[in-house]
């Protein structure tokens, strides 16, 4: 009988970690569903099925145990993040394409669980927004109240995708208005007069962001993530947006607008905190999070894409190994010598 110490193990497993991440997403999903209707739940199901199917095929091809790896929950987390970042009325095949690409290329071709240098969900987002920019920019207009059947018909392609059904995200709308208006609009007027804005950011989107924040704090409380990445992300996004907002409040939205818009909260707590593709040292995590927040701001405000979180995370994924290498913490007893 060969068994090495320790003989006692904590009750922990990869699937437990992944399940808790999914649980932490629920408040955000609930707020999202109340904002855009049941479409998001349909997308979650589509993405999950696609991810599991792709995962099963890849595991079989790679000769890995289905029982062990299909149940680890990692594919489900990827699927959910994709469903939550794609437009809720996106056609089913777009979500499936993104998900399959994430699982097959971004995850398994790099070696599967734990080996992917890039966050698979963000790879899916980047690939689809580059390949299908129009479809990836169609968000349901606020106040559009469609039932489950109507939404499913649109997602499954059984109903025409009329332009009236979709609009820009509040973040995108703000950028477009400020750019096109060339100074004739200011942030305060837009927020006060347009229907898609709530108190600080997009109407209803504030609540979705709040839901992610809540779930993220729970993850932190459960010690599944540390405070470094979210705090640095939120901090750097607030700093840069705050600085420009103070400089010109008419042309730059407030930090609160940026924190509660787009993928900021989801990115800060659920995406940039992905341990596989992110940094692992405490200082590295701070740099990683701060880089994500800063790049996300630059891309969403000055770039051509509606939001910048996906590209920011991918760029930081690229830098993570070298950041880790340069930020190795001193070991016990070597602090004054480091």
């Amino acid at each position, binding site marked *: 009988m060969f068994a090495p*110490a*320790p*003989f006692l193990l*904590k009750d*922990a497993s990869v699937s*437990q*970690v992944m399940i808790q991440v999914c649980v932490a997403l629920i408040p955000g999903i609930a707020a999202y569903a109340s904002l855009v209707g049941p479409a998001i739940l349909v997308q979650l199901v589509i993405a999950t099925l696609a991810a599991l199917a792709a995962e099963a095929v890849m595991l079989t091809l790679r000769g890995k145990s289905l029982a062990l790896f299909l149940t680890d929950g990692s594919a489900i987390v990827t699927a959910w993040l994709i469903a939550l970042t794609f437009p809720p009325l996106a056609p089913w095949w777009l979500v499936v394409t993104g998900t399959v690409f994430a699982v097959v290329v971004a995850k398994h071709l790099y070696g599967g669980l734990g080996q992917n240098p890039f966050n698979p969900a963000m790879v899916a987002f980047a690939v689809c927004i580059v390949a299908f920019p129009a479809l990836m920019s169609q968000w349901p207009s606020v106040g559009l109240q469609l039932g489950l059947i109507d939404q499913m018909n649109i997602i499954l392609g059984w109903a025409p995708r009329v332009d009236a059904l979709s609009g820009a995200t509040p973040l995108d709308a703000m950028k477009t208005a400020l750019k096109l208006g060339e100074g004739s609009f200011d942030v305060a007027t837009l927020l006060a007069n347009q229907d898609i804005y709530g108190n600080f950011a997009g109407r209803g989107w504030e609540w979705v962001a709040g839901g992610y924040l809540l779930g993220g704090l729970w993850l932190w409380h459960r010690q599944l993530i540390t405070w470094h990445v979210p705090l640095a992300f939120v901090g750097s996004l607030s700093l840069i947006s705050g600085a420009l907002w103070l400089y010109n409040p008419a042309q730059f939205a407030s930090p609160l607008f940026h924190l509660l818009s787009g993928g900021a909260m989801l990115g800060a707590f659920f995406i940039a905190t992905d341990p596989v593709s992110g940094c692992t040292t405490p200082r590295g995590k701070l740099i990683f999070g701060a880089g994500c927040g800063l790049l996300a701001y630059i891309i969403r405000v000055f770039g051509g894409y509606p939001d910048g979180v996906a590209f920011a995370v991918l760029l930081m994924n690229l830098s993570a190994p070298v950041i880790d290498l340069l930020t190795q913490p001193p070991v*016990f007893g070597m602090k004054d010598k480091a």
Partner: protein
Amino acid sequence: MLMNLFKFKGGVKPPSNKLQSNHLPIAQAPMPSRLVVPLHQSIGGTPRPIVQAGDHVLKGQMIGQADGWISAAVHAPTSGTVLEVAMHVRPHPSGLDSLCVVIEPDGKDEWITRTPIDHKATAPADVFHHLQQCGIVGLGGAGFPAHGKLTPSTGVPMDELIINGAECEPFITCDDLLMRERADEVVRGIAVFRDLLQPKKVLIGIEDNKPEAIAAMRAAVDAQKEPFSVVAVPTLYPAGGAKQLIRVLTGKEVPGSMRSTADMGVQVFNVGTAYSAWRAIAHGEPLISRILTITGNVHAPRNYEVLIGTPMDELLALALPHPDTDGILMGGPMMGFLVPNPQVPVVKTTNCLIAHADRLFPPKAPEMPCIRCGACARACPHELQPFEMYWFARAKNFGKTQEYNIFDCIECGCCSFVCPSRIPLVQYFRFAKSEIWAREREKNAADQAKTRFEFKQYREEREKADKAEKLAKAAAAQAAKKAAEAAAAAAETGVAEAVAAPADAAIATVNPEKEAKRATIEAAMARAKAQREAVQPKNVDNLTPEQQQAAAEIEARRVAAHLIAPEPVAPDSEKSE
């Protein structure tokens, strides 16, 4: 007594499982049918056996003599007959044999004459010798000979003497019970250590899950009016690790590369060591028994005082193991190991026997890939990055594991404990360490072989040269004899010699270095000449006296003309003749 405690990073809180075994007093284990006493029970040299099969030994009689300074004697745990001195499996994960003295008890338990000493009236060197002769080693785990740690470090003043009663491993309660029941003698032992080391402070660290032990130790310290601080430290595995306890009590962090904590003015002893040292000093009793916890998958877990050398299966039977017991764990569940077979004996460092069963320690779930969650890094008390070391150990990139400070790893098991992918991280680190050691040994062996080869070559060259020189000398002597004969024949050569010799002497006194060089050149020339001599033309050998005389005359003239040392046959003259 309030004092400011420090924290170490990381650590885990496994279920302590101590309540099973700490509610009953220490019991005396019955005399076993036979005792198998391994000679190598401590760090350092293996004691030499000084008994043989058939000898009658008394309880406490030395059977193994310390081999070197870092080594401690081994004694007969009871009186009886030595059955054999032979190789037996020792309680070590390797399962390797080691030399053991097997004793059949005679049941009389008859002591040798014990000689207590008064450590205050004895020179420290003699106290160290006494402790070494009594086989006192660290009972906390490593088994380092106690006298080696009591010798004050040169240059660094001793700030703190720390007594480790933390006992952080789950299941183990032997130190707890020792402190509860024998606090008085533990404190007296600590006082001996204090007298030898002269520290500024004495701190006794006990995890706060042992309130009875803390109370007993405080009472004993007060009763003896010693200025020792009994400190309750937070229960957090591995608070009982020497470096962790030092950190908690003093704030000092001893680097992994530092061999001895004494270099930072701290020394740590286990409470059991203090107790044994006191028994050795005050009663002259060598270390022949210890307290050990028998627990785990058993009906009646309890602490026993057992003789060193008692086979483990006989002890486990005392605690009535459940039928599904499938092995014996020596030590705690975090750092212990399954013994190679149940008959292996208890040694000085055996603090706990745990009956193993899957019910208690479920078999590990299959290993998953690392997801770099960093739980291991957060749990590591030495602030290492276990997942990085794992990555490199797995890739057999051992140089990188060293860059990530693998040798700072104390193998406490915290990383494996928390890993959600159930990776046996400590195993990987042990593997990497042993590979690095093996490679180092191989490299050393290769270096040695190279040195040996080079020396052999050098020796052969030297022998060759020596031989040639000897030959040359012999030839030169012979030639000189010939020349002398020739010179005697020619009367006028005397002048030449008289001129040449002082000139040589002058050179020698002016420059000894040049002289040495000249000697070498001469030797070389002599060698060359010897070789030539072997092929010397025969025409010089069979000369008529007239011819010889003529030749000698020529030579003598040449010598006189060139002011060189008289040589009977000059190189160029050979051909000319």
